[in-house]
């Protein structure tokens, strides 16, 4: 058993998540490959979206995979950082937007 919950080597085990539920697993990969492969958006654009999502979701496996994929596709460091800032801005906006609930409650409760 690994000493940590997250082990970088576990990324290589990702294709084996079909284990114990192969049908669902294969369907997932079929969907995953279609969703992340080139379509109306390029593979490069999708890799940047995935990188932003990976950082927002705090997934170390996905950050590893998509940083490497972006490098492989010639994405520059500043382009990657810009994508991360989109994720950060969306996260901050999401938090602030929820302040609406707080503001509504304050306005209702305060004299």
């Amino acid at each position, binding site marked *: 058993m690994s000493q940590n919950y997250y082990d970088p080597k576990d990324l*290589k085990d990702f294709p084996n998540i079909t284990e114990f539920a192969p049908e669902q697993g294969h369907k997932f990969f079929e969907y995953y490959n279609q969703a992340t492969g*080139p379509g109306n958006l*390029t*593979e*490069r654009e999708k890799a940047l979206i995935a990188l932003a999502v990976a950082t927002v979701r705090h997934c170390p496996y996905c950050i590893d995979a998509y940083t*490497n*994929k972006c*490098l*492989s*596709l*010639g994405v*520059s460091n500043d382009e990657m950082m810009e994508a991360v800032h989109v994720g950060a801005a969306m996260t901050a906006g999401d938090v602030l937007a929820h302040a609406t609930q707080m503001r509504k409650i304050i306005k209702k409760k305060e004299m």
Partner: protein
Amino acid sequence: MDPTEQLKHLAQIPGGIPFTEKVHQPIYSESIEIMQLNVGRRCNLTCKHCHVEAGPHRTELMTRQVFEKCLDVLTAHPIGTIDITGGAPEMNPHLSWFISEAAHLGRRMLVRSNLAILLEGPYQPFIDLYTQNKVEIVASLPDYRALRTDRQRGKGIFEAIIRILQQLNQKGYGQPDSHLLLHLVYNPVGAYLPGAQEALAHEYRQRLTDEHGVTFNQLFCLTNCPVGRYLEYLIRTDNYEEYMAELINAFNWSALENVMCRTTLSVGCDGKLYDCDFNQMLALSVNHGAPAHIDIFNFDQLRKRQIVVANHCYACTAGAGSSCQGTLDCASP
């Protein structure tokens, strides 16, 4: 690092299966379609990833005698492509003569040039020589921006390459419907594998046209082979194990079917024969009974020879495969 030391290091792949075990059985060449001549290790650049470890300090250059012997072999046998590499091939004093002679054979002839050298006075005439003899040019450009290209090849090199690409375009190179072919080579600037050739080619084409007015024919994506300076870089930066694991993990059987050693013979500047340029740098000459020098060239014995393999061969079989002509156009796993 000398070849013996490199091979010793390459033998260590923690957790991985040695290449010979992975492929189960010997690999054989099928023909000699390409004769690749490494005409010298001297170069005006000292690129960080260079498997040849080329640079201005190197003295190894192909002699006129070896060039002549190659011409004899090419004249006598149906080898379709003459592929000239280095170092900077232009720094070999016999290259102009060889190109003019070899052009009479009517074969496909290509030169792997770093292009930056063509800005230097004594080497500028090569542009006309290449044009007159319809030599295909293959130029390394690891990124379509200056930052990464210069990081790998040296400060100011990106700009020099762009200037020469523009000159070559003016001569007709890389233009639609032109017979003057100009290809670019992408290789990763770091310890990762190349992305899809098609996706990178799209990006290169758009950026180079929009930002520099440069056009080209094809983009070849190459995987960096853990040999020479690139191997040293991997070890020094503690990336060796992870990189080898990535190569091994990406092993692709259909790439193995198409590896370039099956159709290429590599000639060293001293006339020794190798299965590829990487084996040349590891001093692994052709073996298993095949004649190992151009002086004793035997077409029948060499075209069906057993290839000499080691763990660096994983670089050519990873993902979509890698060769001097880019990916091997086979499905990745």
